[in-house]
């Protein structure tokens, strides 16, 4: 017998040797490059995580306030006269048609009595225009409440709500050192103090005036350097302003006039609030906002100097409104409750009343139509293309086109929908039916492609086995190829649905962009969808809509997570079966 080993060893002149320095260097270099690769991966993951955290965090921080609302929970006397109809009787119609503004206003003014007429109006306007809606429905349901006094939560206006949530101005209070003597309990009064309590305020006001002046003069300098004809006029104006400010500051009398461009100063004394208009070290003049209980001398420490740091011109709420709200808050009448109406009511021009129910229902209807159309058609088309279609040039073209369609910009589908469904078939515009049709077209290529991939991944040996047992091609495909492919098909469907959920452009084209207040009832009634609602709200000027838009985004993301969770659960369930 031949000795195989000697023959083999002789033929091999090179052997592996890991002990040479070059080998060691190569190994070290390899370890280094692997380490580098790993760290690149970590860095990438870290950056991604950072972005996700920042993004989600930002949205959550912005959006969470949308889910709460402030209400004034007060006792509302329901005098029968307010609810009597033209026929002299109390009926559902008369309850619905009653004017609730005086009812709520009276209830409020009962809490803070003694206000001036103008301030009373301001107080009443702190409520939302729909503040009485809940009350109205309560009375319709239970008319026996009329004549009694009920404790009702009255929704506050969006500006009031924003103030209470975000504290538009920092409020600082300082107990005064001296004794104060007001001249009266209401109207324009003067307060004398025994100590120089207002000295700090005077200094602060002067400082801010100087700050403004130097700011303006810096601007003037800049313009002077630029030169030119247009700037001369502006320059003259600026110079004048600067001169005025400096003059005020350096006025011999240390009396300062407060305007809306400096921080507001108020005095809280004897249960009342006085907004100051003139300041000097020991005497101030101001308007009484909330009446004092007495004009007796207030002992040191029993009255306070209040400062609203942000100047009135820089905020949405006036000093009066701030004062009234703070008073309501200190009386314990202000509650922060969960804003169910955000989820249960339709859209509205008033931010505090706006809800997303309409958009939710619209999205649900639209996705329902999309799913109903795209899933069966998509899956069956994939099955046909994969299993039954003859392999000729026609099917090649179809395949290429499907792949291309998956990449077509979504707005093109909107144009198609507009031209075909709305113009040619005359379907109602802005309806979930049309939206669903358009989105189904959008989503169909994704589902077909994913389903085909899933079908392709089923081992052909299974189909062969089925044929071998005497199943027809159709039986083999539907009994043995499609069921194992279901997880992949499900995944593709959910991806498509999630895609459709967030689509805005095509739905804008078919008109789902109108301001719709009612919650859609059928597939053919006008509707809007969540992403379009986001688009609409983000455009509105009211500050409260910013939080609402972010809140809506949170809802949309939650919807998405829910759908993905459903997808994963479904896929697991199908996979476990076999």
């Amino acid at each position, binding site marked *: 017998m031949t000795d195989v080993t000697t023959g083999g060893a002789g033929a091999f002149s090179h052997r592996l040797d890991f002990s040479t320095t070059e080998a060691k260097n190569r190994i070290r270099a390899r370890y280094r490059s692997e380490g580098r690769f790993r760290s690149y991966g970590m860095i990438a993951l870290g950056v991604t995580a950072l972005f996700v955290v920042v993004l989600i965090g930002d949205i959550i921080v912005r959006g969470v306030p949308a889910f709460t609302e402030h209400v004034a929970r007060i006792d509302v006397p329901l005098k029968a006269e307010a609810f009597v109809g033209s026929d002299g009787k109390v009926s559902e119609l008369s309850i619905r048609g009653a004017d609730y503004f005086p009812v709520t206003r009276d209830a409020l003014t009962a809490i803070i009595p003694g206000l001036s007429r103008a301030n009373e109006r301001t107080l009443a306007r702190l409520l939302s225009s729909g503040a009485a809606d809940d009350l109205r429905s309560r009375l319709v349901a239970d008319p026996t409440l009329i004549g009694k006094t009920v404790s009702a939560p009255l929704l506050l206006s969006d500006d009031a709500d924003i103030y209470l949530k975000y504290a538009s101005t920092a409020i600082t209070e300082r107990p005064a050192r001296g004794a104060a003597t007001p001249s009266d309990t209401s109207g324009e009064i003067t307060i004398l103090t025994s100590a120089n309590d207002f000295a700090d305020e005077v200094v602060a006001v002067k400082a801010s005036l100087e700050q403004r002046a130097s700011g303006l003069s810096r601007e003037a300098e800049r313009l002077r350097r630029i030169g030119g004809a247009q700037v001369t006029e502006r320059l003259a104006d600026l110079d004048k302003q600067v001169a005025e400010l400096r003059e005020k500051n350096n006025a011999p009398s240390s009396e300062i006039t407060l305007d809306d461009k400096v921080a507001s100063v108020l005095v809280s004394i004897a249960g009342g609030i006085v907004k100051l208009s003139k300041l000097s070290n020991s005497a101030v003049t101001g308007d009484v906002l909330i009446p004092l209980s007495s004009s007796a001398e207030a002992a040191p420490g029993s009255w306070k100097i209040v400062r609203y740091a942000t100047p009135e011109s820089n905020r949405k709420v006036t000093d009066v409104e701030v004062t009234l709200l703070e008073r309501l808050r200190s009386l314990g009448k202000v509650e922060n409750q969960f804003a169910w109406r955000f989820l249960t009511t339709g859209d509205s021009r008033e931010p505090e009343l706006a809800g997303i129910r309409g958009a939710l229902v619209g999205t649900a209807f639209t996705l329902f139509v999309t799913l109903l159309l795209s899933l069966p058609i998509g899956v069956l088309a994939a099955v046909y293309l994969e299993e039954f279609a003859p392999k000729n040039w026609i099917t090649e073209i179809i395949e290429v086109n499907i792949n291309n369609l998956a990449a077509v910009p979504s707005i093109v589908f909107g144009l198609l929908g507009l031209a075909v469904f709305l113009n040619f078939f005359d379907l109602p515009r802005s309806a979930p039916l049309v939206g669903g049709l358009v989105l189904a077209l959008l989503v169909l290529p994704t589902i077909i492609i994913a389903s085909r991939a899933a079908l392709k991944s089923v081992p052909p040996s*299974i189909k*062969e*086995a*089925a044929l*071998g*047992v*005497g*199943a027809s091609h159709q039986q083999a495909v539907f009994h043995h190829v499609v069921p194992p492919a279901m997880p992949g098909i499900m995944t593709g469907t959910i991806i498509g649905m999630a895609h459709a959920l967030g689509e805005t452009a095509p739905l804008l084209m078919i008109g789902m962009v109108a301001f719709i207040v009612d919650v859609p009832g059928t597939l053919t009634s006008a509707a809007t969808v969540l992403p379009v609602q986001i688009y609409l709200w983000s455009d509105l000027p009211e500050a409260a809509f910013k939080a609402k838009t972010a809140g809506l985004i949170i809802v949309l993301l939650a919807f998405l997570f829910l759908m993905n969770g459903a997808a994963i659960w479904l896929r697991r369930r199908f996979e476990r079966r*076999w």
Partner: protein
Amino acid sequence: MDMSMQKTLPQSSKPVLDASAPPKIKARKVNVYYGEKRAIQDLDVDIPRNAVTAFIGPSGCGKSTFLRCINRMNDTISICRVTGDITIDDGNIYDRSLDVVQLRARVGMVFQKPNPFPKSIYENVAYGPRIHGLSRSKAELDEIVETSLEKAGLLKEVKDRLQESGTGLSGGQQQRLCIARAIAVGPEVILMDEPCSALDPIATAKVEELIDELRKNFTIVIVTHSMQQAARVSQKTAFFHLGTLVEFGDTPQIFTNPSDKRTQDYITGRFG
């Protein structure tokens, strides 16, 4: 040797091939083309009934191709074209009016890699009878499943777990499950394409024993790469080479004294 002597000789308990019975499958002038390439050339062969016929030959010689012609599995390959006659019990299986699906119920197939359906063991065996309407009630279907599993030598091992997945069995068990599945529809012919090549020796032995038992009631054609297996298991052996049937004869004779040099070279290991 006179007849009296023969009577006193010890006889084997296994059935002997009845040479006088008409062949089960007849092939005449069969040619198979894959596109332009001719894979099988002018094939004539008679496959006996109730016996095991082995097809041996090097890779690409056409044995698997011919096997797949017998149950028309080659129909699924679009570039494959078959000419000539293949008859089972004198019925031409390539006749236009013949329903391929019914043919495949009469001619079962077991594949090289065990491929049970990703369903329960019960479902695997019950699927065929169900779609062919072989049972009228659940009880009947249960019986068919039990009998098939028993004949495949698997019943004892899976009796208590019929609802478990077929893919959870070992390789050998899976292959026997596939055999049970094939015989559940009551075919006349069973085609086996290298059924033991993925199995260990113990599982292989069990399958070979099964084949030996099955040949009492079925006509079996087995394609195998192992000459020892062909020698052990078959009564007739056909040697294919480059698309032609080189030699066809009784297995003992093929393996002790083949007539064709090509056959001899192949089975003794002279591959050049």
